[in-house]
């Protein structure tokens, strides 16, 4: 964003200063050191001028008059006074009015101690009240959604929450109703406030009117300690302030990071804390909500606790035994690790076990080498792009804050969205062109776009007019176009999207790409070489390493004897039965922070630290490396992955030379030039984008009025640890270069069986609240888990004589199950959509996955009424 703005000169309190044309008086004055008090103003939303706290004197044709600094823009020669008697009286008057009906129940209010109203009153208030009347009364907190409570008596009607919902997230479940001092924020009478982003309204509320159920009454602000970190619940990489009371996580708040999240978070990232430290009573290692506290080994068929020494010895022996047979061992997983953890395991698998069989993805991603060969876009570039083209699942569900950033691009800047529509999506209503693409068709539609006209397979829903309009938007070379590419359908061979990706990249050479892979640090794991085709530093190797699906095949045939699982497997794969069969007779060593059904097959289990318990760096979808910081100590005797990998290597008689996370980051940076150590050491909180000159973004000073609850963002990451770097030298072989698109074989053709226009083809897509670890372990989110329904377009419903709620028998080549039907008009005709890891009536999250035919590029299903 290199917007050139002309400057004007204004006078604030007698001193002249330069301001950018169009700058708000409140901002210009603050830059010059004259802070103007405010409540409703928020730098990330349009001003509304409601609270009137920011009144200042501005010279105009009628002399100096009181004007709200939050929406008056500067003009040349403007004279502003922020500290006159008149200004002070007006501001004090507003404050007194705000307090008139405020209940002043600060001692029992969660906001007490970090409350903008309390702080301003302390700074400017009179100390005595002149209001002797009966205050306004409302029923005390009402539950307006699954996670949010509203106390209307405390509300000061600043419209931050309603504005956030209407303007930023596009939700309509809360709005003002009533008039005068009886005006209240009112929930929709029919729709609960279950927005994916509801927690943001709580964070920006300048009083204690909105409170979040999980945090309510759990702590006082002054008891909290904070670190700044990066959320790894998904791969957007939102900057967060993580707060704990002692060793108990209490709260996560969004930090105003200019390139990434603008202070916003999704509710999953914000409220998943209990999955980390909230299930102390849970000891069953087969439950996903259980935190693993001590190493376990299988004795007489049962997992029993043991010492680290015993567990490491057993694991080392087993893995080395398997490694003695060619291709006998491999590793699966690692997308939830830090870069340092991923690097350490990569060193272990390639260096110690001498295996190239390692893959951080579960067959649900895209080819890492292909992604790394594409010209990249940043989130900011996508959020400002002339045209955005999405070939992904629903971003609101998969990468929620990316959805917010993109939404702003279409709403505020009016830029265009071309959506490959695979199923329902939050961005769909904003699409300039929606191409209704059926499973197995995306590469053909992409190819059609590269031609000047025509060429679509028969029976496609996409019309020539839609193709034409898209071609117009893409232009000759794709200049100003950002493609956002993920996996919209797990029941479809990755080759379909990879094929589309290749076709588009070869044709639109000026376009850039933003990967939309969802799983926390999957980009970092690929960058660190947890991929059969990649070495650390995105280096391409054309050797014979097996992907996850290939390893599972090899384990089933017995060709591969052992597998090292970096995280639980069965919750993540589509073919649960096939994966279970693969593990049943294999040697299985699991390194994980959480339990799960996978542990049924484990021979050794090594407990690991998870997010908010470990230091290091992570890499988000755009390749931005940022620091993560431990806030609490991992439970029991769980270790960090770097420590586990290092100790296991020692047990195997070799040294990784990685004595700490910092040492590990140092080696990553020195050996492959990947900005790990520099990010850990530098106070620049926005990190660095791999392969780009580090663009130091000066963070605006923390405004506690805009971001109440966040103490200070000037933490130095891990700088305090860097002095302890041990001077060890480790030799890493020089990296080959990263792949070029033309050198890769991937995406050069996939065989899609023919389907007729009347058949239904399966689409399995992600929902935010699936039955994964983050949600299972967080009781607050449990009621939001998606239920399994068969989602169909109304054309198909009509054709089949079905209506919402009808239960149908869905049959695929692999399974038959009963599902209730739901209307989903964004799902293209001929497609049937089912959510991944959603729960059916019996609480089972696997059944819907069994429909997928792993042997075919797409899965066709039949529906029969029961």
């Amino acid at each position, binding site marked *: 964003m290199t917007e050139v703005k002309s400057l004007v000169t204004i006078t604030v309190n007698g001193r002249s200063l330069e301001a950018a044309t169009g700058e708000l008086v409140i901002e210009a004055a603050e830059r010059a050191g004259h802070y103007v008090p405010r409540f409703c103003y928020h730098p990330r939303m349009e001003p509304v001028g409601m609270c009137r706290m920011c009144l200042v004197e501005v010279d105009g044709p009628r002399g100096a008059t009181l004007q709200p600094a939050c929406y008056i823009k500067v003009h040349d020669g403007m004279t502003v006074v922020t500290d006159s008697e008149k200004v002070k009286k007006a501001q004090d008057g507003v404050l007194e009015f705000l307090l008139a009906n405020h209940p002043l129940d600060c001692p029992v209010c969660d906001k007490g101690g970090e409350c903008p109203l309390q702080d301003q009153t302390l700074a400017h208030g009179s100390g005595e009240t002149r209001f002797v009347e009966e205050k306004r009364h409302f029923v005390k907190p009402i539950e307006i959604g699954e996670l949010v409570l509203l106390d209307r008596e405390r509300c000061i009607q600043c419209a931050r929450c309603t504005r956030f919902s209407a303007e930023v997230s596009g939700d309509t479940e809360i709005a003002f109703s009533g008039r*005068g001092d009886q005006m209240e924020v009112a929930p929709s009478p029919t729709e609960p406030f279950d927005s994916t982003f509801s927690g943001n309204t709580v964070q920006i509320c300048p009083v204690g009117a909105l409170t979040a159920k999980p945090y309510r009454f759990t702590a006082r602000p002054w008891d909290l300690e904070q670190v700044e970190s990066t959320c790894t619940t998904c791969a957007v990489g939102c900057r967060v302030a993580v707060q704990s009371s002692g060793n108990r996580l209490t709260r996560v708040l969004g930090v105003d990071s200019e390139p990434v999240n603008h202070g916003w978070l999704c509710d999953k990232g914000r409220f998943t804390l209990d999955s980390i430290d909230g299930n102390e009573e849970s000891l069953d290692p087969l439950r996903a909500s259980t935190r693993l506290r001590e190493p376990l080994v299988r004795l007489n068929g049962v997992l029993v606790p043991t010492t680290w020494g015993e567990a490491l010895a057993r694991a080392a022996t087993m893995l080395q035994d398997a490694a003695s047979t060619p291709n006998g061992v491999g590793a699966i997983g690692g997308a939830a690790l830090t870069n340092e953890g991923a690097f350490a395991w990569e060193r272990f698998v390639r260096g110690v076990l001498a295996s190239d069989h390692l893959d951080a993805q579960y067959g649900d991603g895209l080819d890492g080498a292909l992604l790394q060969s594409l010209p990249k876009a940043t989130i900011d570039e996508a959020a400002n792009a002339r045209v955005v083209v999405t070939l992904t699942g629903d971003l609101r569900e998969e990468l929620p804050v990316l959805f917010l950033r993109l939404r702003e691009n279409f709403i505020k800047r009016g830029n265009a969205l071309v959506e490959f529509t695979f199923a329902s999506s939050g961005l769909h209503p904003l699409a300039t062109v929606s191409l209704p693409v059926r499973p197995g068709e995306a590469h053909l539609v992409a190819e059609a776009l590269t031609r000047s006209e025509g060429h679509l397979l028969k029976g496609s829903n996409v019309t020539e007019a839609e193709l034409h309009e898209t071609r117009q938007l893409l232009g000759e070379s794709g200049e100003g176009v950002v493609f956002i590419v993920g996996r919209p359908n797990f029941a479809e061979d990755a080759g379909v999207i990879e094929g589309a990706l290749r076709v588009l990249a070869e044709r639109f050479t000026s376009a850039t790409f933003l990967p939309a892979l969802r799983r926390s640090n999957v980009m970092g794991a690929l960058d660190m070489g947890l991929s059969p085709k990649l070495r650390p530093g995105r280096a391409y190797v054309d050797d014979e390493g097996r992907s996850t699906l290939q390893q599972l095949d090899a384990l089933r045939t017995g060709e591969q004897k052992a597998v090292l699982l970096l995280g639980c497997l069965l919750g993540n794969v589509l073919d649960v039965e096939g994966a279970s069969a693969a593990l049943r007779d294999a040697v299985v060593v699991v390194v994980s922070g959480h339990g799960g059904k996978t542990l049924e097959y484990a021979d050794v289990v090594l407990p690991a630290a998870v997010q908010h318990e470990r230091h290091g760096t992570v890499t988000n979808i755009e390749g931005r490396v940022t620091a993560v910081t431990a806030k609490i100590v991992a439970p029991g005797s769980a270790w960090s992955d770097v420590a586990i990998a290092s100790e296991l290597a020692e047990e195997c008689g070799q040294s990784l030379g990685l004595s700490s996370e910092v040492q590990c980051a140092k080696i990553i940076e020195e050996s492959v030039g990947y900005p790990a150590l520099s990010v850990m050491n530098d106070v620049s909180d926005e990190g660095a984008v791999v392969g780009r000159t580090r663009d130091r973004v000066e963070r605006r000073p923390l405004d506690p009025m805009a971001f109440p609850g966040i103490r200070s963002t000037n933490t130095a990451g891990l700088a305090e640890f860097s002095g302890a770097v041990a001077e060890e030298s480790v030799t890493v072989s020089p990296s080959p270069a990263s792949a070029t698109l033309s050198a890769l074989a991937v995406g050069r053709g996939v065989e899609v069986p023919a389907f007729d226009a009347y058949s239904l083809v399966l689409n399995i897509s992600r929902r935010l609240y699936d039955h994964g670890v983050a949600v299972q372990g967080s009781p607050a989110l449990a009621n939001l888990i998606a239920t399994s329904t068969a989602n169909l377009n109304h054309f198909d419903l009509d054709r089949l004589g079905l209506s919402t709620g009808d239960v149908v028998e869905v049959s695929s080549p692999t399974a038959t199950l009963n599902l209730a039907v739901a209307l989903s008009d964004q799902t293209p005709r001929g497609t049937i959509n089912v959510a991944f890891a959603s729960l059916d009536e019996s609480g089972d999250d696997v059944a819907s996955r069994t429909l997928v035919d792993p042997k075919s590029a797409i899965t066709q299903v039949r529906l029969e009424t029961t």
Partner: protein
Amino acid sequence: MATLVAPRIVTARTGYDDSYTLARFLATGGYEGLRKALTMFPEDVALEVDEASLLGRGGAGFPAGRKWSMLRKSPVSYLVVNGDESEPATFKDHLLLERDPNGIVEGIIISAYALQVNQVFFFVRGEFALGLERVQHAVNDAYEHGALGSKIFGSDFSLDIVVHPGAGAYICGDETALLEALEGKRGFPRIKPPFFPAVSGLYGEPTVVNNVETMANIPWIVLNGGEAFAALGAGRSKGTRLFALAGRVKNPGVYEVEMVKNTFRDLIYDPALGGGLLDGHTIKAFIPGGVSAPWFGPDLLDTPLGQDEVGEKGSMLGSGSVVVFDDTTCVVRAAWRITKFFARESCGQCTPCREGSGWIERVLYRMEHGGGRVEDLALMLDLCDNIAPGGGWPPQQTTICPLGPSIPSSVTGAISMFRSEFIRHVEGGGCPFD
């Protein structure tokens, strides 16, 4: 004695029992102004209105011709007519809507022609059930008669009018709140700048918003010329104007009188108009321009009925409502009742208006019911000062729209003019008029 020689411009046909019918309308010169206008260039129609110096009749008194000319540079997209008359004791548009809806519609069509607008939204207060029915009827009749729709009276000009009932909020009389409501949103006045809907109005398009009575004047101006209109009245206030006279007078009602040539005394006491106070009572004070306006004492009865003439004395002609208080009127109760109205109708956006109106209302209620304290007077004056700093006229404001600064008008007026009556409430432990 009142000067009653001026023609009746907007109430010419309101005396007929069937004044609202198309038949009576056509029999009394209906659509003649429109037919004449369609023979003129649109700019010339606008020029006539400009020459008439017609001040907008909605309350702010902005010259209608100037409002139109601000828009000549770029095409206007919409004309919006404000029929959301909702202030207590203001009922002049009410009369026109019920008694001469066709005349308003004719004025609208001519104005739309002058502005070359093809779409009009007519926002009528929802509670005016009869008025709404008759306005809609008049619009339907106009379509049937060829005065609306495509190619009006065979000309190249086409126009549609949509009648939109308000949902019961006084604040929607503010033109920007009205536009929000028309757009289907909550009726919140918009922040300024942009200062005028002419710049960015309905759906962000250049929009002219005019009052019902303003529209009703247009046919006469076109037929008789702007000059003839400007010959009536004096100073900046030309033509005639409707006054809704209420309170303790013999003949409350709506009167059309020539501006400036008549005074408040004429309006209140002339036997042909208000007819004086009820027998045996004397005037105590009066509100010259609706409950938003500062009060006048009997010493200002001879103030001419002119915009500037009233403005110079520290109040306004405003909505054209004149309310008369006599010796039986409790000023505390009157101020409370007016403040209660504003407290109920404050849209809730700006803190000083939202909280200030409710606070002052509660203090006045307490005082009226025996709980008053002497210090409440200073408190209320200071709260008023925090809503409209300085206490001058026109008021300075701390709020987005003028509803906030309307609150102090009656409160500070009552306290400064009748301080002793407030003290009697305090000392006597209640209202001495009970």
